[in-house]
């Protein structure tokens, strides 16, 4: 298996083999972060630009740490303090970054398809760090990496994704990735947060949290994105917690070793109780650690793939 893509835009267009290559490469990179000198020279002399049009701390920091552990130089552009404020278009910003001889752009944008548009206009690598409601591939990859590390495989696992499926790029990337790797995926949320025709992605829909947890090997708890609730359409927080919140009582009815994941940041007492978030089943902080290894693998592979594609 040879990686030939210059970009990582989403899991929808990756093959099972490509996803598995990223996960196995990440497995090799994980050891680097446990060393005293947490650095290898693989991307020495390469420049990675983090271009973030949406606020993000953990994803940006995770990419920055990953790039630095590969010895790349990292530049962070936050659009609040850049020429974007003066009306520069995304393509112009991209071609200017390319003209600086940067090698990889990591982009987070509030419009779906922004990463793909940038990738088509540039010769340098583009990594999607979240585009609108579309995809957040590295989050899904680190979720799958964590699952595989904990349970030894993905094939045949029952994974429930709970929360705001309609507005979640994390959910979409997870669904595409998990199904390609042979997992059975259930999505669970109040009806208003389930997008129409979601079944066509190959998932089962449940409106009953206890039923969705019942025989699940893992549950991925999504953050309730109240900041996206323009029309006041979301359920009230207290009501959501009562009906869909992941609590100790609900977990007691599930498999004893069920894995609890959350992409962060946590809304404690809304989608997950503190007891569960900090409890024995939670792998939330391990996800953060694994995110570094997965992003190192992605940066390394797209930097290699750049030459293979041309």
């Amino acid at each position, binding site marked *: 298996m040879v990686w030939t893509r210059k970009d990582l835009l989403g899991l929808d267009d990756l093959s099972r083999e490509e996803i598995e290559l990223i996960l196995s490469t990440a497995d090799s990179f994980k050891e680097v972060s446990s060393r005293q*000198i947490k650095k290898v020279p693989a991307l020495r002399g390469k420049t990675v630009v983090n271009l973030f049009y949406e606020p993000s701390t953990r994803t940006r920091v995770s990419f920055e740490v990953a790039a630095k552990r590969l010895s790349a130089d990292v530049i962070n552009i936050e659009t609040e303090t850049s020429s974007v404020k003066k009306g520069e278009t995304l393509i112009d910003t991209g071609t200017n970054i390319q003209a600086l001889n940067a090698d990889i752009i990591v982009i987070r944008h509030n419009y779906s398809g922004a990463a793909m548009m940038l990738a088509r206009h540039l010769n340098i690598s583009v990594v999607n760090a979240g585009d609108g409601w579309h995809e957040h591939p590295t989050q899904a990859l680190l979720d799958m990496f964590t699952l595989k590390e904990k349970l030894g495989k993905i094939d045949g696992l029952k994974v429930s994704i709970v929360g705001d499926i309609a507005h979640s790029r994390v959910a979409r990337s997870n669904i595409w990735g998990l199904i390609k790797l042979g997992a059975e995926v259930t999505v669970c949320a109040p009806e208003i947060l389930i997008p129409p025709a979601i079944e066509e992605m190959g998932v089962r829909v449940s409106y009953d949290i206890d039923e969705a947890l019942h025989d699940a090997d893992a549950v991925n708890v999504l953050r309730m994105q109240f900041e996206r609730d323009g029309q006041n359409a979301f359920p009230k927080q207290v009501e959501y917690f009562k009906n869909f919140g992941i609590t100790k009582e609900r977990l007691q009815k599930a498999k004893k070793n069920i894995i609890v994941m959350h992409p962060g940041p946590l809304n404690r007492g809304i989608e997950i109780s503190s007891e569960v978030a900090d409890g024995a089943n939670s792998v939330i902080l391990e996800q953060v650690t694994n995110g570094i290894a997965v992003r190192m693998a992605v940066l390394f592979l797209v930097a290699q793939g750049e030459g293979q594609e041309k």
Partner: protein
Amino acid sequence: MPDKSKLLDKEAIRRSIMRIAHEILEKNKGTDGLCLVGIRKRGVYLAERLKAAIQTIEKKEVPVGILDITLYRDDLSLTTSQPVVHKTEIDFDIAHKSVVLVDDVLYTGRTIRAALDALIDLGRPRSIQLAVLIDRGHRELPIRPDFVGKNIPTSQHEAVEVHLTEVDDADEAVLVKKE
């Protein structure tokens, strides 16, 4: 079909390993502070065999680690090859140790340069020595082995392949003429 000629057979490899084990023990005055680090892929199996030989001679166990040098290669930015990254697995502290690096074939020396950088990133060993089954010459860097199974003069139009039963069909070293 490329032309092949055998450089070492099973017995010759076995004797080489045994002799190198004796030389390592002689030079290091026993197993105190000694550890072996095999370079992926076949250096790892040779390091394991050296460990077994040392155990037979000295009745002492020495730790063996695995080094993957992919991330330290100097040809990563060349687009012709895309190496697969594997794990480095060295679960002991190499600081203040005498490390014997083990590889199958020594050629340009670039792999060993990468291995030295990779090792030193893991700690500061007391010394690093180099054991190889075959030294085929044509060095491009100032690197020399401390322990050699066999010196074989080769042309740059030839390739040396070491096969080990851990991953191959036979124990042998062969010279292959490239097309």
